[in-house]
């Protein structure tokens, strides 16, 4: 199976949702504040802090809790896959650990006035792992493949967001010209998608990219081994000879292995578990994850179709307590659909909109006709402990206003099918994240969006969302984003809970590891301490 399956899942994901700390199928979250190419911030800069006593060689073992399911840069949708192949493939642009989008395999990008034509200048002197030299043909092939434009494809984009590409051509001066079906000023962050050699179609079994590490082997159920790319185009990188991604049964057995020295880096801990670790042996790195954990309320089912009920729920829950219980306090409270990590796109005036007020919540429920509360089912994916725990805490808190929350655990595949796609649910807990751009954070609230799994509908929001891609001016866009966020709060679209902090334990044996505000394990900077 099946590219077809990946494709389907990727289609579902749309804006991609991200699910919690403990594991898998999360995709890369939001972008840096700038959607514009940042010419000055060349990627080389990030490799520059290679200090003089850098130690080359050695190996590192990263613990992951999910079996990889795809090594194809265009069909991989699971966050666990993407964080791994981040080291193998590179796109025209690439994020750094601050969330900034930098040119990578492209040195420059020109965007036409109406945002419908993107023209990339391709970096020279880059070679693939198989020895081929990167040229415009490779880029054209890769982008066409991602957009489903190859002759052998049926037109369905492998990377859904690139479906809007009409054509990709090599210009006479060796540049790559991407033509869109209509103007879209929000697309640059999707060009991080991996570039593979022209005509290459065996990425599943033998991934070939341009990244700092080369694929070595995958033993199902045990590990994925990457080895150093000796011809990496960034001088001085990477440091390590070998990186092993070791698959752990669950977080707790991974943690035990970490303490036994069998694993060096273990990401996505909660603070309770992180605090158990010996600080002389491990450093805990942390960063915001730029995710939005949502207690999603299906706006189309009674009694949740009543905004007063949704407001009552918003007032009944205690976000601080939830963060305390689920993350050991390592999270940022959210009141709206966007994480503060999105910078200026986030409207700081919305901070603290809700504070727990049981009386008011009860009054609202009474007003809506539910003075004694009601029964509500929350459907949570069983593989995400954080969400299950959140549901447990929610059940306890909501019982104070008479809402009897019944927890129903389902496996991930079922969740995707029945909750996300078919929207046959009452409420759920999940982490959402945008792929690279604020637009993607909010596009799901359009009435006709396939990602609008909460069945939210507001014509004003629809209009605003239609307007944004046509604008080129960032400030104007920001203003509209703020408007949408405010409307969502007014409508009490759902309960937004937290942006959980990513905590990663790193053995003191290693240095140079940084936590990205997205689902990425960048091993290129990691080195062994002398």
């Amino acid at each position, binding site marked *: 199976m099946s590219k077809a399956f990946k494709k*389907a899942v990727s289609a*579902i994901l749309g804006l991609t949702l991200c699910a919690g700390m403990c594991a898998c199928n999360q995709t890369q979250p939001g972008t840096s504040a700038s959607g514009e190419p940042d010419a000055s911030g060349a990627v080389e800069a990030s490799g520059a802090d290679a200090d003089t006593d850098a130690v080359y060689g050695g190996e590192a073992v990263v613990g992951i809790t999910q079996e990889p399911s795809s090594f194809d840069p265009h069909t991989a949708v699971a966050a666990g896959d993407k964080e791994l192949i981040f080291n193998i493939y590179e796109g025209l642009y690439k994020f750094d650990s601050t969330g900034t989008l930098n040119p990578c395999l492209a040195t420059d990008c020109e965007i036409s006035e109406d945002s419908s034509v993107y023209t990339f200048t391709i970096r020279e002197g880059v070679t693939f792992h198989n020895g081929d030299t990167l040229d415009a043909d490779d880029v054209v092939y890769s982008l066409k493949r991602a957009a489903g434009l190859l002759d052998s494809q049926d037109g369905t984009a492998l990377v859904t967001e690139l479906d809007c590409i009409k054509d990709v051509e090599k210009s006479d001066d060796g540049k790559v010209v991407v033509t869109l079906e209509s103007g879209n000023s929000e697309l640059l962050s999707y060009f991080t998608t991996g570039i593979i050699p022209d005509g290459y179609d065996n990425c599943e079994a033998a991934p070939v990219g341009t990244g700092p590490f080369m694929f070595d082997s995958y*033993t*199902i159920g045990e590990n994925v081994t990457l080895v150093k790319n000796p011809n990496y185009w960034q001088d001085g990188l990477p440091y390590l000879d070998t990186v092993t991604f070791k698959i752990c*049964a669950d977080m707790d*057995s991974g943690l035990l292995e970490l303490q036994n020295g069998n694993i060096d880096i273990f990401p996505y801990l909660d603070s309770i578990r992180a605090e158990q670790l010996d600080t002389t042996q491990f450093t805990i790195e942390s960063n915001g994850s730029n995710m939005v954990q949502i207690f999603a309320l299906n706006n189309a089912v009674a009694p949740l179709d009543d905004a007063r009920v949704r407001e009552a729920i918003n007032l009944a829950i205690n976000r601080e307590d939830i963060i305390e219980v689920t993350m050991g306090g390592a999270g940022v409270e959210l009141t709206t659909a966007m994480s503060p990590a999105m910078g200026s796109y986030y409207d700081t005036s919305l901070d603290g909109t809700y504070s727990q007020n049981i009386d008011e919540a009860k009054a609202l429920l009474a007003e809506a006709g539910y003075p004694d509360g009601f029964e509500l089912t929350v459907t949570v994916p069983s593989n995400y402990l954080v969400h299950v725990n959140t549901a447990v805490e929610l059940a306890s808190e909501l019982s104070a206003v008479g809402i009897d929350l019944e927890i129903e655990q389902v*496996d991930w595949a079922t969740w995707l099918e029945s909750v996300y796609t078919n929207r046959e649910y009452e409420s759920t807990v999940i982490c959402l994240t945008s792929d690279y751009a604020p637009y993607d954070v909010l596009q799901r609230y359009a009435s006709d969006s396939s990602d609008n799994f909460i069945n939210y509908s507001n014509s004003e929001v629809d209009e605003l969302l239609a307007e944004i891609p046509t604008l080129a001016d960032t400030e104007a866009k920001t203003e509209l984003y703020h408007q949408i966020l405010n409307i969502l709060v007014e409508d009490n679209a759902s309960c937004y809970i937290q942006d959980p902090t990513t905590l990663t334990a790193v053995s003191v044996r290693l240095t140079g590891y940084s936590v990205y505000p997205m689902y990425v394990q960048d091993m290129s900077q990691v080195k062994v301490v002398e």
Partner: protein
Amino acid sequence: MSLNTRQNLKYAGLKFIELIATLFVVSFLTFAAFSIIPGDTAQIMLGPNASPEQVARLRTELGLDQPLPVRYITWVAGAFTGNLGDSSSFKVPVISLIAQRLPVTLGMSILALIMVIAVSYPLSVFSARRPGRIGDTICSILGHVLFAIPPFVLSLLLIVLASGVLHIFTMGKYAPPEKGFGNYIASLALPAFAIALPKIAMTFKFMRSAIIEQNASEYVKTERSHGLSEARIFLRHVLPNSNVSSITIITLVLSDILGGSLIVEQVFNLPGLGRLLLTAIDRRDFPLMSGMIFYLALITVILYFVSDILASIADPRIRLK
């Protein structure tokens, strides 16, 4: 003598027919279970957004459009020729996945079995020689307690003890057999011990009462009256007779061990069949699930067959009716 031989062969033949019949039912149950479960495999593989044409195409590709009996025959034929198709989530043949994981589970199971026999046998002999004495009572109570602790709690305790306190074990460090047999065994010893402990208790209890029962039997009295020494009576008469029943219990233990390895693999983070099955469940990988279940059942069926034959060798009453 020739009569005996003929009856032996007849017994083995009957058991073999039974084996075939059981295999038929087992394969049928496995197949049927995975045919009636909710969800169309093709639909699951393609995801809910797939077009009906795509689903239909995949169904044809997988042979799902064939009538059930045809699919069953194809599946069984595949199962016995080692071709169960590809895993829907790993895109590699199911059989190769199983083959790759087998050394862990099998090694652990065999190791656990050896431990069970090596510990429970001498212990039960010791206990049964003097039932009701202090040593026997301690062994029996310990056996009950060990039996009452859930396997995963036992595993956790062992991990904490062996790697946290004693530092004699590195968690999750599995060494495949091709990288040195000693290391392979060492990496599986503790998990095997965790599986073995409750089974030791179970086998001990069973063996002990079998020996006590045999000790009290009439023929022991006869042998005593013939002037045989107690040691000889025990070794030549009591033990072989107790072994007849212990074959059954050890077979049960072995099939329990196979099942029990599932949880222990998860706690010890070992890449065995159990974790493969959990992965398959997690990903709704039906070809992998059905293949594994079938092969595990196949192992058990063969195990029972071997145990029947062994029992018939040990006990002439079974084979010579």
